[in-house]
């Protein structure tokens, strides 16, 4: 499900089934050299989470990407996000990011780090097969989490 008022209405009635939150974490690098790569990472993350949502619509609530400046304090961000999520009843929370800085931090559980693939210049069909391939990398991680604690 998406973070839209219509989906949230449904979510509220089906909380026991929609037990997984997915939060994309996106770094904004607006320097002349970094902007294109940053945009690509954002595009990649949003395509990936969109097809993930399509596959698992009834079990996942996909949040809008949390975007932050390059210099933002990620530890603080992690603390704030977790505090917010504690108000919910999600059993599983996944953070998806292409920002390598999260790899060095262990403030957040279940951060899936994926190096962004430059999909922007690919033609539609090719892009689609690449993204499905990416999805296949991520799916087992979700299945594993779900079978371990449910």
């Amino acid at each position, binding site marked *: 499900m998406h973070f839209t008022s219509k989906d949230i209405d*449904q979510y509220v009635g*089906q909380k026991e*089934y*929609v037990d997984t939150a997915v939060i994309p974490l996106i770094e904004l690098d607006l320097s002349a050299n970094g902007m294109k790569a940053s945009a690509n990472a954002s595009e990649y993350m949003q395509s990936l989470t969109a097809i993930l949502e*399509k*596959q*698992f*619509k*009834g*079990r996942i609530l996909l949040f809008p990407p949390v975007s932050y400046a390059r210099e933002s304090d990620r530890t603080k961000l992690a603390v704030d996000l977790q505090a917010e999520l504690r108000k919910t009843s999600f059993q599983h929370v996944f953070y998806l990011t292409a920002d390598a800085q999260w790899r060095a931090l262990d403030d957040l559980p279940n951060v899936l780090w994926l190096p962004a693939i430059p999909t922007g210049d690919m033609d*539609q069909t090719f892009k*689609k097969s690449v993204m499905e391939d990416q999805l296949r990398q991520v799916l087992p991680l979700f*299945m594993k989490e779900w079978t371990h604690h449910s």
Partner: protein
Amino acid sequence: MSNNRVSRRQFLGYTLTGVGGFMAAGMLMPMVRFAVDPVLQQKDAGDYVLTGQAVSEITEEPVRVDFSYEQVDGWYTSDVTNSAWVYRDGDKLIALSPVCKHLGCTVNWGGDAEHPTQFFCPCHAGRYEKNGANIAGTPPIGPLDEFDVEDQDGFVAIGAVKENTLV
């Protein structure tokens, strides 16, 4: 000498006509667009989307067939890719929607190793027979939807979604 000059009255006349005309156009244009757009955009419910899947390759084993079309959502136009599970039943083509009737995940044919001849929903282990009938005791409460489907010059074409007619 001075009869070529634009008088104050004429100047005002021209100017106001100009501005007025511009304003009228400003008001009219959106009205014309409202009137015309829906007509231009109208998409016939009977439209079929041609896929790249050859009909001759379709067997009794369901295969996933992708198809894309343009979707307009408010101001945002996007290419949507959808898929259908297509198989042959005698000389008829059957196309089922992959959208689980529980909460909308995507189902897979043979997705559960223990039930290789059923559709499986990975979200809450919903299962369906090959004709889309939901299996009692699993969360879905109805059968998978069906698509209109057609053979267009040897290729599968997918039409509108409808309620399952096979169950």
